[in-house]
């Protein structure tokens, strides 16, 4: 078997980057219910890819299939150059998985959990201890090393879980909702850790999340998954640009100034209460400049000016809204059953 990575043309048709994860037409259903309805993914090496979607969109199923836990009904996939169907053992040798529910042995201490991983990766005594100490230090878990899993806080447990995943030095890491249920501070810490992983070690990460800010913060590319289908894919910026709603917001000190400005901008919407004017905009610099120029030309003084681009929340709601009714209907049907 050639171990070289299968080249897959990227959608932009530009530079071809080797894919760490490549997926075509992945399908999975449980009984009547279709969980994945033909997923295609191309994730270049050394990047973070976020699968974004509401609960039940198929995020976890995608990860379980790619991590060899669940067999797909149809479709092809390769992870780290290993074909998922033909060589699952090869896939297992390059991946690390941190699941939605932390997989730490609760009766063992953090240190023992790490050594367990070292033993299962056949690292040898010395190397196992060295790597465990290094990870404990890096994740600030050294003080908790002798505590059993049951005694850990949510944030520490996630860190311990990720540390266990890293003991095997995986090239491809699956993070299934790594910060769900964490307090804001622990979330920040996890983000920090995840970012450093990519920067320092060049690993590839497939992240699933239902938090838009998390995808925005961490991912190079984002795919929005809804009802088992990818409804959009791109960088955070590309996704934001895809939907309307951007505008330039101009606030005035006096009602007269607002009235004068309304005369200048025909397409704008005025809010008398807050003395603001919303001028539709794509957020580009020339557009911004022309707004300022028009105000200057009419000698209208503005108190404040800000540019509002749609955030991922707008994108998310716009993209997943269409199938929402369908999903609601499905839920209803399930409840009847």
């Amino acid at each position, binding site marked *: 078997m050639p171990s070289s990575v299968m080249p897959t043309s990227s959608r932009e048709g530009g530079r071809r980057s080797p894919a760490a994860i490549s997926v075509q037409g992945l399908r999975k259903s449980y009984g009547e219910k279709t969980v994945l309805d033909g997923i295609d993914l191309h994730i270049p090496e050394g990047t973070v890819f976020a699968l974004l979607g509401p609960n039940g969109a198929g995020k976890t199923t995608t990860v379980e299939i790619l991590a060899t836990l669940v067999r797909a009904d149809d479709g092809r996939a390769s992870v780290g150059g290993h074909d998922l169907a033909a060589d699952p053992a090869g896939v297992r040798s390059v991946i690390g998985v941190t699941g939605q529910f932390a997989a730490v042995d609760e009766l063992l201490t953090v240190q023992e959990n790490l050594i367990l991983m070292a033993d299962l990766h056949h690292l040898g005594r010395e190397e196992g201890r060295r790597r465990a100490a290094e990870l404990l230090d890096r994740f600030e878990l050294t003080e908790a090393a002798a505590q059993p899993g049951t005694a850990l806080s949510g944030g520490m447990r996630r860190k311990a879980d990720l540390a266990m995943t890293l003991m*095997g030095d995986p090239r491809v890491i699956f993070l299934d909702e790594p910060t769900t249920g964490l307090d804001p501070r622990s979330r920040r810490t996890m983000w920090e850790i995840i970012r450093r992983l990519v920067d320092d070690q060049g690993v590839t990460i497939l992240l699933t999340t239902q938090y838009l800010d998390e995808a925005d913060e961490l991912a190079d590319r984002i795919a929005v998954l809804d009802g088992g289908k990818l409804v959009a894919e791109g960088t955070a910026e590309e996704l934001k640009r895809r939907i309307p709603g951007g505008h330039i917001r101009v606030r005035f000190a006096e009602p007269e100034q607002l009235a004068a400005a309304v005369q200048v901008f025909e397409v704008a919407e005025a809010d008398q209460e807050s003395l603001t004017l919303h001028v539709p905009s794509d957020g580009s610099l020339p557009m911004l400049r022309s707004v300022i120029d028009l105000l200057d030309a009419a000698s209208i003084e503005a108190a404040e000016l800000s540019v509002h681009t749609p955030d991922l929340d707008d994108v998310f709601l716009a993209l997943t809204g269409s199938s929402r009714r369908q999903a609601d209907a499905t839920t209803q049907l399930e409840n009847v059953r």
Partner: protein
Amino acid sequence: MSTLALTMTDSATMLRRNLKRAIRYPSLTFSVLLMPIMMLLLFNYAFGNTLGTGITAMGGIGDVEYIDYVAPGIILMTATSGAVATAISVCLDMTQGIVKRFRTMSVSRAAILAGHVVGSVIQTMIGLVLVVGVALAIGFRPNANALEWLAAFGLLGFVTLALTWISAAMGLVAKTPESASNTPLPLTFMPFLGSAIVPADSMPSAMRWFTEYQPFTPMIETLRGLLLGTEIGNSGLISVAWCLALTVAGYVWARVAFARVTRQ
């Protein structure tokens, strides 16, 4: 390393994990010991007099004390009691995220089960030694020599191995720890319906048929023979055959159940 060597290494790692877990969570181990020790005390101090007199009147056990008659059967019950604990711990483990983690790693699949089974056998064997100790402390006086003791523990180990594989399978097919603790319960009653407490001859004829042909009766008779010098006859051979058959059946069942649980 070869596949076999890897399986052995991983099994040893899993065994270490299971033994550590047993030490950290000793209540399950204690519950294994509780049943046989309570039985020993109950049948020696509370029922012993009446049962002993009754059996002697039937000419059942000659001039042996009742504790000597009942101890081998109750020692064997430690193995059935251990089976319940095995089913619970296997079921609990399968519902934990860590087994999912093992399955995403290059870990030998057989090692996950092997670690459990070997760990449980060791745990139960330690329990057996303790129960024998309690029996000796309250008046059990076997006349076995070293070789006979060795053979007795050999038989107990084989019985434990057979029951552990079967209960591991029960733990794998159980959906909840509660049902995992219920499924092996019939096993714990089997010695009562064997010759553990009273001789098979003393039972009603319909029950006697079951008693004579169920696996625990020859096992108890062999143990009694080894420890007290009573007649063994062909019970030894039948016991070994039963153990072998139950081990193979339990092993196959467990492997099939494990494959089914882990393939979705």
